[in-house]
């Protein structure tokens, strides 16, 4: 069980680095989608007693993160005619180096944490920390609104991984609520981006500083 979970998380960690390194918007969206699918599959391998509740959560996650959200983002890109190139404020190579360093630190740092014995052997916690860190790098290091959405999604994937530690104690309602929130958030951001693009001809968040007070 543990080895297939670790394989999936390892895949997600690799996808983190890929997301940091890619320079084109559609590919980042695809990477985020793939990561969502990979993480969505984890509950199937984790469970000894496979329940319909967990299956529902897993299937929902795969559907929303793998299909709905990428579709929304692609549509937003099309309607807002967003430039496909990413303008990084932290370059791709430094981002990747940072991400790799963060991943290593996460693996190392997870051993410092007081974990339950059944989680200590998995990559769940290191993967979660690495994804959160990657999400932050994308949020900080990219300037267009849509790439920040991707960073936000990767950040959420990290939080989702931590949530998996508690999958038995988290009710279905909470899980589905989180998914719904995420979907609506991306949906709304898609609309807002369109509006911003029409109003200002740009999605550069660096220019949105007038309302700082």
């Amino acid at each position, binding site marked *: 069980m543990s080895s297939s979970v670790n394989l999936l998380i390892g895949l997600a960690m690799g996808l983190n680095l890929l997301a940091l390194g890619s320079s084109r918007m559609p590919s980042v969206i695809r990477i985020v989608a793939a990561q969502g699918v990979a993480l969505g599959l984890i509950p199937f391998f984790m469970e000894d007693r496979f329940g319909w509740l967990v299956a529902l959560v897993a299937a929902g996650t795969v559907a929303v993160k793998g299909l709905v959200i990428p579709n929304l983002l692609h549509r937003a890109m099309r309607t807002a005619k967003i430039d496909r190139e990413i303008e990084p404020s932290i370059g791709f190579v430094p981002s990747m180096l940072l991400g790799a360093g963060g991943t290593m630190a996460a693996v190392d740092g997870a051993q410092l944490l007081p974990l339950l014995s059944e989680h200590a052997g998995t990559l769940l916690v290191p993967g979660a920390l690495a994804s959160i860190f990657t999400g932050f790098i994308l949020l*900080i290091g990219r300037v267009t609104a849509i790439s920040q959405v991707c960073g936000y999604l990767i950040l959420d994937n990290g939080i989702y991984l931590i949530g998996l530690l508690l999958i038995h104690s988290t009710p279905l309602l909470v899980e589905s609520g989180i998914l719904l929130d995420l979907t609506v958030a991306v949906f709304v951001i898609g609309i807002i981006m369109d509006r911003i693009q029409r109003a200002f001809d740009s999605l550069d968040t660096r220019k949105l500083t007038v309302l700082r007070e």
Partner: protein
Amino acid sequence: MTPGHLLLIAAVAMFFGLLGGRGAPRLWLTAMLVGGIAALLAAIQVFVSGAQWDWRSEFSVCGEPLHLRLDAMSAVFIALLGALGGAGSVYSCEYWSDKAHPRSARAGRMWWSAQLLSLGLVLLSSNGLHFLIAWELYAVSSYFLITLDRQKREVRAAGWLYLAASHVAGLFLFAFFAMLAGRTGGWDLGPMRDHAELAPLFWLALFGFGIKAGMFPLHVWLPSAHANAPSHVSAIMSGVSIKVGIYGLVRFSGWLVVPAAAGWVVAVLGVISAVLGVAFALGQHDLKRLLAYHSIENIGIILIGLGFAMIAAGHGNAAWGRLALAGALLHVWNHGLFKSLLFLGAGSVVHATGTREMSLLGGLWRAMPWTAGLFALGAAAICGLPPLNGFVSEWLVYLGLFDSLIAHSAAARAAVPAVVLLAMTGALALACFIKACGVVFLGAARTNASARAHECGPMMRGPMLALAGSCVAIGLAPLVFWPAVARAASAWNPAWAGLEAPPSLGTIGVANVALTVIAIAAVSLLWRRTRKNGLRRALTWDCGYAAPSARMQYTAGSFAGIITEWFAWILRPLRHRQIPDGAFPADASFEEHTPETVLEQLIEPAGAGALQVAMVARRLQHGRLQAYLLYIVLGLAALAAVVLFGGGR
């Protein structure tokens, strides 16, 4: 009626004035007078009976039961509040009328009532929490009263400065009361003379109340606030508000144990305030600013008395301390009376001429004989001249200092310089008020505004007459007022119980009456002779110059020039001069201005520095989302580091 009933009447009247006084000036005035007189009567009852009134409520306000207490110490200040509140209310009806000030007169009445009410609460409150609430209410209502005329820029600036100082004072008092409550386990206040561990808290109280009292060098807010407020507000601020700072110091130095050095520090600060207050006053050219600096001087005199009383209390309750304290408390009354009188007189001048600038006034006594006479009487009283009240209270302070010398006490060494400097202060005050009275009321009118001046009406004259009457009464019959301060002194220190007056006080009363009789006889004799023989008018000696004009009189600056030169090291007067040059000089000018040195040389640079540091920190907020996220990451990382490596595990 018990004091409790009277205070209830006063509170209801003030509350009524607060709510219903906006639109109905007469009704408001009646309520204010009823309230003031009821408070005064309550205080008198306490003085006569000597019993304190103490009341605890069944209900609680903000989580604490209301605890009010009127002992002789509170009564000293409540009496002053009632008297000056009533006088100021009458005065304001003409001075700040609805007709002349349609924008602010209504608000002025409301804030006036609010201020009197909150000041009363401060003086009665025996619970730290309620004390603070009342204190803040009083600070805020004072701010609105100072800035009644807020169309003017300098008024707004004075208001801001006052508000900032009030906040600093409030901060210290919050710390003081919170720590007091923390160490005693409750907000209730009362005598705690057996808790020696509370002594260091006195320094917090000294700072907080010292700012309010206008003690040098914490006085920076006082001159501009007093100068720019409407005159009846200046009168109540100088008469009562800053005395509330004194009340706090007296109250908590009596109830708590104070550090051994506290008395010395208070006495030294008192001497500094007295001497430098009058020195700064001499440098002023603005009539109300001059009076404001005299408030600092008189606060200094009160602090000298209090400081020596504290020293005496710390050295076996020596009897001379009681005299010093009684002098200080009587001076609280006296300064309240004559300083209000002077501010109301200055208000009358401003009302008639529209300016406070002394070099634009002159010769006003012909147009305003009542104002001039009453102002001169107040001036004589503040200079401590017999037979008026200032002389009596300063005499008591002197008596305390001399007795400490005679007793070879621990304070004897400090008493000599204190006496010398106090005497110097009196002399300088006399010079300063000769300057003020001379420049404003004597001589010839310097401008058209002062030439067209008119006497004030009965609503303004009445309160001034009443205040002048009280000044004379305390001067002529000090023994009548002695029991009040004696009871307050015994409330401050139970070891000083008893009502017996120092023997010289009666002598002074008799001497003052005799002096008054002789003066009246001499004046009436002179008056009769001039009526009989007539007056011959002639030119003053003009050094042979044929065409003297009103501009050739002594100005405020030139009159005080010699003395301000002695104090130039601290006054730092700014002078712009263009000296006449050659045989036929084209033009020449001379301008002098005495800034508020502590504010401009010390506090403003410090404030500018703090602002610069703050501006650097402000750069962190620029609106870039990415950087904000970075702050979050860094913050989280720091928290994680603290949790992991901070030893908390």
